[in-house]
Every structure is written in C-alpha cells, then in structure tokens.
C-alpha cells in the first residue's frame, strides 16, 4: 500500500494487495480485514511506524516505514553498529526477591541475575549476553515497575 515496507520479526513481509482494513471502532482499535472471500477480526494498536496487530489471539508487532524513513534508517544503521553497555530492565512490574550478582562479576549469557516476583510467580531475569556487571540498581525487597533498570552490563 503506497510504498510502505512492513517488517514482522525483522523480516520484510509482502502485503497482499487484495486485502484491506476497515475500522469497526477506531478508538479501541477494533477492525476487520476484508479479503477476496472472507473477513477477519483484528485489533490494531500503535502509531507512527510501530504497530501491534492482534490476530487470532496473538499480538504481532509490526514496523511500518515509508520509503523516506527507510533511507534515513539505513544511513543511521551503518554508523550505529557498536556494542556499548546494555541496561537490563524489568519486563514486568513486581517485587525484587533476590539479586544474584554483584558489580564486577562476570556473567554468561542466560545466567540468572535477578528474581522478580509478579502475580505470585517468580520470574528469573537472565543476562541477554555475556559480560561484566557494571552496576546493580536494585535491592531485594524493592518494588520495580516495567522498564525500570535493574542493572548495567558491560
């Protein structure tokens, strides 16, 4: 549709030309996709280039970019392929019940770093990659919100 590129899970997806979107209720994102021989209910949320489509119960993140945005991103991408420190963040709000590492410690990818209890369940926060712990930002007993920085990994 008018030169947009759609990526799902990092891959470019071809947009079938014989389907279209019709809003049922714009505010809540309810819509129907109308195709040649059937229609499908979806919820579409988002704005700009970032969208989430709920299809058959599954939330599918999709990036929609215009030709201009693609040009811009490509030139920036070439410059930004470094690997600086990463922030390990909470993906759920909850209570920190255990901090398993200390600054200076070397960890391997997948090592358990912090345990966060949410909805009566204990969730292990694991190292996204190997590295040295630069800083631990939380203590056991502390409540964290989604997106809160738990620690910094070199």
């Amino acid at each position: 549709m008018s030169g947009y590129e759609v990526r799902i899970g990092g891959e470019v997806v071809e947009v079938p030309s014989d389907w279209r979107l019709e809003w049922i209720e714009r505010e809540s994102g309810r819509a129907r996709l109308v195709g040649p021989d059937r229609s499908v209910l979806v919820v579409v949320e988002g704005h700009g280039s970032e969208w989430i489509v709920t299809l058959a119960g599954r939330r599918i993140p999709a990036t929609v970019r215009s030709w201009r945005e693609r040009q811009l991103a490509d030139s920036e991408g070439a410059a930004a392929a470094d690997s600086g420190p990463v922030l390990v963040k909470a993906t759920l709000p909850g209570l920190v019940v255990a901090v398993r590492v200390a600054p200076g410690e070397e960890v391997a990818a997948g090592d358990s770093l912090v345990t966060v209890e949410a909805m009566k369940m204990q969730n292990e926060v694991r190292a996204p990659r190997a590295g040295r712990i630069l800083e631990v930002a939380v203590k056991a007993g502390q409540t964290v919100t989604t997106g809160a920085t738990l620690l910094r990994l070199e």
Partner: protein
Amino acid sequence: MRACRELGISPIAVYSDADAAALHLRYADSAERIGPAPAAESYLSIDAILDAARRSGAEAIHPGYGFLSENHEFARAVERAGMTFVGPPAASLEMLGNKLAARRSAQAAGVPIVPGTTVPVGDDAAGLATLGFPIMLKAAAGGGGRGMRRVESEAGLVDALASARREALSAFGDATVYAERVVAPARHVEVQLLGDRHGGLAVLGERECSVQRRHQKLVEESPSPAIGDTVRGALFESARRVAGTVEFHNAATVEFLLDASGSHYFLEMNTRLQVEHGVTELVTGLDMVAWQIRVAAGEHLPPELLEAPRTGHAIEVRLYAEDPYDGFRPSTGRVTAWQMPQGPGVRVDAGVEAQTDLPVEYDPLLAKILVHAVDRPAALARLRRALDETLIGGVQTDAGFLRWLVDQPSFIDGRYDTSLIDTEWGSGPDLTDDEAGLAAVAASGARASQQGRSKPSGTPEQSAWSRLARTEGLRP
C-alpha cells in the same frame, strides 16, 4: 451476586483501591472499601472485611474462590462475629487446609494417595531419594501451583527445596513442604460435591482438568472424555470417602490424578467454589452459588439433587492475561478492545470490560468462556466458533493458544494429559506466511489511514451522507 438477587438477598461487595471501578461492584446493592491495593491490606485482611461487614449490616459472607475462601481463621472470625460463613466449619477448613493432614486422613479412609511422604520434609531432604525421581515438592498449606517444584534428580533437590519453601512462606506464611512421586503421564480429574448441614451429600459429576500450565488449569470439561463408568464409579466412591473424613457442608471438590492405567490417586480436597464450577452448573442445570447459600442457611438438599442427572457436555476455557508464546508469562496493561462471544450455548463469566486497567496485584484471570452442547463434538464446534468471535486488544492473552488447542487431534480425541502444553505447544507455532500477510495488511492499513494517505474508502454513513448532500444540492 447474581445468585443473591435471584434468591431475594441483597448483595454487598467489597473492593480495594485497585478495584474501585471494577465490574463486580455494579452487580451489588452497595459496596464497602476495605483498603489499599495490596491484597494483604485488603482482600486478605480479616479485620478489614469484618469491619466492612459490620458497617453494612451483613448477615452472611461468601468468600468467593480465592483469597480467604479456605482460611479457617477467617471462617472462625466470621462465626464469632455472629455472621454465617458460606462454607464449611472452620475446623474442617483447618484440617483440609493442611494438605499433609488431608493426605493422611484420605489414606486412613482407604483412598489411594500419590506415593510420597505423609510427614513434612526436613531441610536435609533425607530419605526422598528412595521415592524415585522425578518427585514433586508441594507446600502443605498450598494450592494453585504455588510452592510447588518438580525435581528431576538428587542433584537439584536441596536448591528446589529451598525455593519451594521460600515461595510457600511468601504465599501462605508456612514453609512446610511434603513430597510426592511424579505420576506421568497423568490426567487431572476432580469430583464436584455438595453437602448440606444434615449429612446430605450430592455427587455432581466429574471435571477433566488436564490442560494445565504451571500446575494451573486452563481448560475444564465435564464429563471427562477419558474415563468410562467403572473409573467414574471408583472416583465417586473415593470422593465420598474423602468427604466422610471431615464434617462439611458446602460445595467441595475432591481432586485426583489418574495414571495411564486408569488408577486414581487422591490429591486434595477443596471446600470452596472452584473457578471451574460453571462447567458443573451447565451439565447439571444447578446454580452452585445459590446452593452454597441455601445449605449455609440450613436447607436440606432435596432427594432428586443427590442423584443429579447430567446432560450434554460442557467445556470451559480460561482467558488469562498471559503470553502463551513466552512461557505463559503474565502480561499487564490496559484492555482496550473487549469483544466476547455470544449465541446459543455460550456463557461468559468476565471480570473485566473494555478500557480496564489490569491491576498488577491480583490473578491475571480475565474471563471464562463456557460452552454447553448435546455431546463433546458439538461442544468442541461451539467452542471453536466462540473463540473465533473473541477479540481482546491491549494485552496479550492465551486466546491464541486456546484456539490452537481446539484444533489439536489429541484434544479432539480426548487423548491428552497434563503434559500437553509442554510436549505439543512449547511456545506456540511460528507465524504462518498467511498470518504475517494479514498482520501486514492491518499495520500498513492503519498507518495509511492515520496519515490520511489512502483516501478512506468511506464508512457507509459517510457515503450515505455525501450522497444525500449531493441529491439535496440538486433540488431546485
């Protein structure tokens, strides 16, 4: 609260600050605030709830099926305050609340129990290796899958024990743990009972609850597709015997594990309403909550209820705010779109509606979708149809998993056990090209309409109005 209304009783709800706008309050005649969002200061606070009951002049308290529903101290406090607790006597709750004591008394009543310990496990986990691995560690005060750890070998035993104790202590305030040998493959089947204050006991059929993740049920159906009349009869007999070990009047569920040979083992007895009670309501035509209230008030169960006939097949699926594509992790946020199925044979018990924030503090159960039909194939077809009508936006739910499940040969044939999610679902199938294409249509279409790039093809209203404007303009 619907049951109260139908019985001519005026219902009063309680709420915490997190629930001040919640759906349940609108069904009540009045509502009492019991404290801030954390459950420990509101829904788990006996004093706060009793204060609310006194303020409002309540005569009886129905404890629901979470929080304090099986808390004997609460039951005793309610009785002491001169009100009726809609549930069993406090002493029975105390006895059954300890799963270890319940194991011992079931065994004494001649009911088979899962092989394991009947005394608490010590810190050194001594003697557990002789049970044979894998084993399951369970909280004596437990329920709902919390404080449970599966242990594959002796190496992981000490760590698992410490972790089970920690979770048990935080969830129940009691770190006592016992051990059972893992029965695998296993099915989880439970028997629904209803007792009155005069020794009357109705056996209201069984429910198959083998679709589970983290030992919590996602799907329940009745009758079980996997058992015949012989096994069913044996289960009912064991359930009656377990019920005979305590004095109880209320709805109760006796849970069993069934192994591949059809032998059954007692797991636990819950003397409260279960989340899945609706399945039994559909096949028996009874209102379980109404009967809980009636037996609490001292009514006799009528003779025809004791042999309650059951008709058709009922299935319940639970909609959870959980991500089945990521290990069923809880998801949070705001429910934006909320469209539930309707039509013949479909019942929806929902705790939320569109534009509801999900409180982080409580269980992520959003709704239960139940279907009832003449037999299992018809119920499956109805469930498939109902799930196709279900649409939820804003948070990831398990709806996609449930829709997948209804098409699985093992589920259709009723040949599934508690390992189904691990062995057949994993983290879900990959997105198909067809699905990715449709998602791309939706996302690019939404962006285009946001930027006004593609001319809106016109909702019917707009076209009609513009047509009207044109014709009006043409009038002389």
